């Protein structure tokens, strides 16, 4: 077996021509899907904890359903089905963004549900006793504490989400992996390109995990 790698084709031009555009999309997709996922995930979690059947049932079906399907299938289906439904094509990037928010909302909702449940009932009583409405109690007392308790888990999910953005290859969106793939093809060096991609994913994700660990120590609430 003759394995010899040649990384000499990598240059700043190549990186700026092929990789940065993809990296930008991967990072933006991660950020938007995290923020959107936490927002809708929190709503889903509140629905599931509302004690009202007509809110619990649809939220539970949605969350359990999403969590039982591989992400790549959701990405594909959404990309193929939505144009049929609305009668017009939507771009791969737009489709991926919506899909990721919808999919991640299911995972973030489970994290937020655990977070909300980690707040003692007495805290809710205290807010109520001071005259807060359900919304005020959630917004001012429960969610800030739940969010803080769950921040390390939320960020870990974000790191997984960043890795999962590579799945948009299924619909041809231009993410970081795609950037490396195109560069590899153009220079006839696909294996080197994928190795470089793996290294970049590793460095980014590993540094983020390290940051999460440090952050965790800093933000813990004193009880």
């Amino acid at each position, binding site marked *: 077996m003759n394995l010899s790698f040649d990384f000499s084709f990598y240059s700043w031009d190549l990186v700026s021509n092929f990789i940065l555009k993809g990296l930008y999309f991967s990072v933006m997709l991660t950020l938007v899907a995290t923020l959107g996922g936490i927002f809708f995930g929190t709503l889903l979690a509140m629905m599931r904890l509302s004690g009202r059947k007509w809110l619990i049932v649809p939220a539970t079906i949605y969350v359990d359903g999403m969590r039982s399907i591989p992400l790549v299938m959701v990405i594909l289906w959404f990309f193929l089905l939505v144009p049929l439904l609305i009668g017009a094509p939507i771009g791969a990037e737009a489709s991926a963004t919506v899909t990721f928010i919808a999919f991640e909302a299911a995972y973030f909702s489970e994290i937020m549900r655990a977070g909300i449940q980690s707040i*003692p009932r*007495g*805290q809710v*009583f*205290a*807010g*109520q*006793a*001071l*005259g*807060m*409405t359900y919304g*005020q109690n959630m917004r*001012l*007392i429960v969610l*800030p*504490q739940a969010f*803080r308790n769950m921040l390390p888990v939320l960020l870990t999910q974000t790191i997984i989400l960043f890795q999962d953005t590579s799945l948009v290859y299924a619909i041809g969106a231009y993410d970081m992996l795609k950037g490396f793939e195109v560069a590899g093809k153009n220079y006839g060096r696909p294996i080197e390109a994928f190795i470089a991609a793996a290294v970049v994913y590793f460095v980014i994700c590993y540094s983020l995990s390290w940051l999460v660990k440090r952050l965790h120590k800093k933000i813990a*609430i*004193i*009880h």
Partner: protein
Amino acid sequence: MIELKSVSKWYGSFQVLDDCSTRIEKGEVVVVCGPSGSGKSTLIKTINALEPVQKGEIWVNGTPVHDPKTDLPKLRSHVGMVFQHFELFPHLTVTQNLTIAQVKVLRRSLDEARKRGLKMLERVGLMAHKDKFPGQLSGGQQQRVAIARALSMDPIVMLFDEPTSALDPEMVGEVLDVMVSLANEGMTMMCVTHEMGFARKVASRVIFMDVGGKILEDCTKEDFFGNPDARQPRTKDFLGKILQH
């Protein structure tokens, strides 16, 4: 000011309050005691509807608490409550704990809320701790902040749910001192507590509850402590046990 009429409550088929009736007049200090599981805490929480009831009527200052149409947040905003486990908000500083509901619920300006809150903090003797987080305070200090938080809302009545049961013995006194001074100023108070010394000092009436959620005694302090022969056997038994040591 507060009236309970034949209040009953069940958790499933288990009855926690059984036909409880009583009245509390303005300026009265009513102590509720009884063995654990007798529904004392549940009873006091029905007054601001933290615990809903299935039967009976509860009136607070002319507002029907049992009526589903009642604006409960509004009612609760002027019924102060102090909890066994303090329930300060751990993610907020002491000052923020004192002001948050004043600003968000009573719509006071932050300035006004701070002024009022810090005045109450001064009164419980904790001005030096205004910028700390609750977790940095002792249990007794936290409970005093919790009292100051409730007082900042200018309540018409204060409810205390076992305010000293979770405290180390040497911290009970500082909390009771605050409660005694409140009582002496004429605050209407209902206190679930086993501190019989407190009851003897400031209570106008004592309510004794027994397992099953029944009110067995509802009489003046003088009667409760001074006239044992008029008491139910169950009450005598309970008092004998807690006053023995």
